[in-house]
């Protein structure tokens, strides 16, 4: 893991790391950096598709539930209307659409981010606490296919960081 003083240095370094072919990387910064996704070669999240799927499932569940209760299981005439009264079914179906889409968005986001994560080795580096204040960190994981201790370390040193740390498991 390498430490940098400014966001620009971090983004430049991240680009070089990506171009060198490292995949299992991560960057840490006290505030969001717009360019970092592209610099690290992070692909767009599949979350929007999951949310859309969640919404469709919610819609079908809502309509199915009402069809089951009003048409199939216990048909009863209300206000002289047909058993399957679509206009009246729309609000509950809509609510379930929103509910499941929102649940998928929140829990999907947590899951895709690997949260909650009570332990992460980077916190073993004492200076990493500065990531929430003024310093910028770039991490290459040892499980990366291209990882080789000597080579990776010297490569990271070539990026002109403030310092390079070994992160202990």
């Amino acid at each position, binding site marked *: 893991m390498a430490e940098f003083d400014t966001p620009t240095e971090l983004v430049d370094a991240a680009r070089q790391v990506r171009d060198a072919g490292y995949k299992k990387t991560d960057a840490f910064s006290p505030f969001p950096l*717009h*360019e970092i*996704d*592209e610099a690290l070669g992070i692909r767009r999240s599949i979350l*929007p598709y999951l949310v*859309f799927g969640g919404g469709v499932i919610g819609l079908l569940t809502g309509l199915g539930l009402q069809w089951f209760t009003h048409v199939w299981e216990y048909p009863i005439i209300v*206000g002289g209307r047909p058993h399957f009264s679509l*206009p*009246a079914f*729309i609000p509950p179906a809509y609510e379930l659409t929103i509910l499941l889409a929102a649940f998928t968005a929140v829990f999907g986001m947590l899951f895709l981010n690997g949260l909650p994560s009570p332990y992460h080795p980077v916190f073993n580096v004492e200076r990493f606490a500065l990531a929430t204040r003024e310093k910028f960190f770039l991490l290459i994981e040892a499980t990366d296919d291209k990882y080789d201790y000597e080579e990776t370390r010297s490569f990271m040193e070539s990026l002109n960081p403030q310092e390079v740390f070994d992160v202990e498991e």
Partner: protein
Amino acid sequence: MFNASDYMAPAELGRWRNLALGVGGICTLILFAVGFGMDQKETALRAWLLGFMFSCGLGVGGLGILILQYLTGGAWGVVIRRTVEACSRTIPYLLLLFIPVALGVKTLYEWSHLENDPVIQHRGWYLTWGGFVGRAVIYFVLWGVMQYLLNKWSANQDRSEDYEESAKWLGTATAFSGPTMVIFVLVVSFAAIDWTMTLDPHWFSTIWGFLYVAGWALSCFSFAVAILAYLSDKEPMNKILGKRHFHDIGKLMLALVMVWAYFNFSQFLIIWSGNIPEETVWFLARMKNGWGWIGLILILFHFAFPYLVLLSRDVKRNAKYLAIMAIFIMILRIVDVFYHIAPSPSTTGQELHFNGYWILYLLGPLGAGGIWLFFFFRELASRPLVPVKDPFLENAIEHGKGH
């Protein structure tokens, strides 16, 4: 600071301006020639009313968005401001387009013939020619004052010496916009009720005004997207507009498509649940004799299709795709108001039947819309395309470039 003369509209807009006037003028002439020459006055005036309501959606809707962007702030507001300002400056000319409606009240509105109807008698002076035209003048005066002041302060801002003075004018406009928004929504609500709801004088809906508040905002946002997309690859707007601006305005379009559907569905669900003859008559007239198909088209293409397409981030960030969607929505906006106007009971007391003259309904929006567009392009060219002295302009440009 930016130099005002570098940010004037490109000269080729003049071609579009003249084309709009030509098409608008010819369509208007044919519309009224056929209407009066072949005794189709009612269809012709209804078609004109359709065109007038559509133009109002762009002009008055522009005033609404102008007020809105002062209240919310944000980069999209800075880049869209001059376009909707030009829309709002067309309001005096909309009064011109209103003249055929005011003169044609006897042909257009059934209430002008129902002196012996107890319901109409109960409405008193409200549903008389004087009341109708008097109120319309009040609406236009109120809208006119709003747009005059906001445009004046915006012009003052362009002449500011420094950011401090410019921020002062921005502050004045913002402070004015708060209470004005309330009055604006009320005026639009009253106007919509007068101009289209009273076509069926026995029927009423309390959400009617909001159908038009949302509808006009959607019309004008779509129109602004089309204009900005056209300008985005030309000098000077190619230096200003970025993907994110279109993304932001696209999100607002998506929201308004949903609001439109929400208001319409609320109206339908309440009337459907209540099932009272005096309320259901409006929907019954719009479901039988094939009108139900137009309703279905509106559900599918004014709501479902734009909703699903606008969910996509890639569409919203691509100026060209978003502009195509925006033009599509504008066409459906006309169909929506057509659905309000055309099935209304005829003042002749006869059943309405579809006939060849209904092609006039195409000429109405083309005629009134073309004339409106001429005034719009004229106003757009009269000022820089961005508020050059606005303290937030630089930030807004930066925002557009981001990811």
